[in-house]
């Protein structure tokens, strides 16, 4: 209806609301380079293609990292209905584990941390193992550490009412932040860790690393995405959906609620660890100040709610949209907005993020890309087969 009387063939069967998500994604993609502003060179579209491209790549690197964390939160909240208000803990643990494994021994008076095994992991120099082996080990260790922490938190709390876990995750996030800040001998305290090595870092110039990085993170996101898609459509994933929608019925059908919830929570946390690992590679520097509740927990909730909980594509789209709007508002600071707004811009962003979550819950609870109705890949295949067997000849 929205397109007028005659609609092109491919739009048949689409509702007007189906156009919201593509329209939002497209307008953000266009707006980012156009609104980009550089004080010294003027707006990017003024012929500065290279600048726009570089800016957009850096943007995508961040979106990739955040998409991993949002996907992880989606498996916990979107598919299982388990609340995690302490994404920070698992994110931070993944990032720091990665850093201490890949970095060399501590050097200088102002650095002190445990680990530093990066140089020892160059096992077979002939295969250039220094360029990839430490990173594979570190990312795996990050996933393992975050998963283990999740198990320890889940054990006393997941048997109880849902909100006990939510409270405990806030606690573990607070403890994690405190440990990093207070135990200087372990993780260098509030000075943070800098110079985290980057995978395949020798292949390209440091200033061009983001182009390689976006490919690496893109591959990781794609692998995680397809693995999760596969998992949630498996019998295991259907139990999770059952738990989310009706825990008692699922328990009554003989499923061990506690075991499935724990598995989902641990899997999600392990992916958060991988996300933290990618964060460490992408930014090469870690500081406890960067891991605030807003930037390391809350923003992922906003991304997931906006994108659509219970839909992996929605999780990625949410990361893109929220970080896109965030970037746009950062760029707006290049324009003259008046002191009263400029000095408060970052707080206004926080306000909008909080309002976005509440707003989505009230107005469009399913988010931009609502969860799909299908659950099982097996049923899907059967339906498709039967339809094609019974289908009448195509209309002309």
């Amino acid at each position, binding site marked *: 209806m929205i397109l007028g009387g005659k609609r092109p063939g491919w739009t048949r069967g689409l509702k007007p609301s189906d156009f919201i998500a593509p329209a939002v994604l497209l307008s953000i993609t266009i707006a980012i380079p156009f609104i980009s502003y550089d004080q010294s060179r003027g707006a990017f579209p003024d012929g500065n293609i290279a600048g726009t491209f570089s800016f957009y790549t850096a943007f995508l690197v961040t979106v990739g990292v955040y998409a991993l964390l949002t996907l992880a939160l989606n498996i916990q909240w979107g598919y299982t*209905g388990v609340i995690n208000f302490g994404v920070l803990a698992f994110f931070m643990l993944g990032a720091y584990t990665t850093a201490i494994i890949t970095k060399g021994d501590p050097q200088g008076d102002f650095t002190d941390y445990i680990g530093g095994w990066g140089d020892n992991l160059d096992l077979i120099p002939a295969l250039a193992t220094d360029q990839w082996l430490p990173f594979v080990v570190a990312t795996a260790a990050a996933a393992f550490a975050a998963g283990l922490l999740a198990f320890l938190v889940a054990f006393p709390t997941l048997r109880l009412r849902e909100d006990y876990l939510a409270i405990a995750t806030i606690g573990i996030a607070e403890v994690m932040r405190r440990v990093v800040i*207070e135990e200087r001998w372990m993780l260098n305290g509030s000075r943070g860790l800098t110079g985290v090595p980057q995978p395949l870092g020798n292949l390209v110039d440091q200033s061009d690393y983001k182009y390689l990085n976006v490919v690496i993170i893109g591959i990781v996101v794609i692998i995680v995405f397809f693995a999760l898609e596969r998992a949630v459509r498996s019998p295991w994933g259907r139990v999770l959906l059952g738990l989310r929608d009706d825990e008692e019925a699922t328990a009554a059908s003989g499923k061990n609620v506690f075991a499935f919830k724990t598995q989902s929570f641990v899997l999600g946390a392990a992916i958060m660890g991988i996300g933290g690992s990618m964060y460490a590679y992408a930014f090469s520097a870690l500081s406890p100040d960067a891991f605030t509740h807003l930037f390391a927990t809350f923003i992922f909730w906003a991304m997931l709610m906006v994108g659509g909980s219970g839909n992996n594509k929605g999780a990625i789209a949410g990361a893109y949209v929220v970080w896109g709007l965030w970037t746009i508002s950062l760029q707006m600071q290049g324009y003259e907005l008046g*002191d009263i707004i400029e000095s408060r811009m970052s707080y*206004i962003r926080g306000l909008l*993020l909080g309002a976005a979550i509440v707003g989505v819950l009230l107005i469009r609870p399913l988010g931009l890309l609502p969860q799909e109705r299908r659950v099982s890949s097996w049923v899907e295949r059967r339906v498709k087969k039967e339809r094609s067997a019974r289908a009448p000849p195509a209309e002309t």
Partner: protein
Amino acid sequence: MATTQKISSDLGDRLRDFRRAAGNVAGGGGLWAAIIIFTIWAAFAERDALTVGIVLGAILALGAVGLTLIFGVLKFAHFAHGDSMMLSAFIAWLLLNGIIVGERAGSETTLLPVTVNDLPGADNAIWQFSFGYGLIVAMLLTAVLTAGMMVAIDRVVYRRLRKRRSGIVIFAIASLGLAFVMRSVILIFWGPTPRLYTPGIRNRIDLPFDVSVLADQLFILAAAFVVTAIVYVLLFRTKLGKAMRAMADNPDLARISGIDTDRIITWTWVVAGFLIAVAGVLLALQAHLDSELGFTLLLPLFAAAIVGGLGNPQGALVGGFVVGITQEVAVTFDFLSPGYKFSVAFAILILILLVRPRGLFGERS
């Protein structure tokens, strides 16, 4: 015959009830003993930390009673509690001084034409306190405003979720969203710099047994006591309180016995808002006004409510003191740096969830 039988079965029931209650007390006995021994030890070894712990405990108790009331009647964990407390504290600051951050960060401008401090002698310090009666007036005004704010939030957000019969987790997420909205509102109007209600010296008072406290801390204890007494009377001596407790016990039963649940929910928010405002102002008086403090406080608040058993107001009162004292005394140990103060609350929380998830007063699950 029949009467004797009835009496004996009555006696049997009573005996069974008594044995169950006794079993519960014994089950919690280990924890109780640990708490009492710890407190007595602290009274000898770490008297200053214990004093501060009691003051902090009183504040936490007020917050936790509000939290547990909301949990009892509305059945969800209110994650905006800490930030509501801080927002109230800043509202009291605004009423007192009328000041917000100006156009540029760091500058100041006056928002309100008339403030509480304009009242004659409102900022003359009473007795040894660091503040005048203005702060008390501002606190009471804030309590009214906060109660109104909580009811308004309930109308706009939570009631709509209730009508949709959303799960408790949706309420939790909505309240977390609101927590960040409140924190951002604080930052937008008052900036990130910590503030104090009144500049000037805080007088110390020497009490018997070698205890010295700040005069302001005595005020905090007194105010917390008065507010607790009011809430106690409201909950246990009025019809409204009875209805609230009935709803906490069994909402459906309450509804079919003719209790107007919507009205009770509104009143719950009014009482909770009152507690939030007083706890927030007292917290800011003990520590300072700081946008970060609200969210950090969430953990000890929940720990206190869970120690007492979620939904149990008397339990929350005791839980507040347990958490407050343990936090303050624990960080005097050499192996715990003061930075871990709020992490202690987490340790208590996990311990309670492992040993007695329904709290010190709850029955064994």
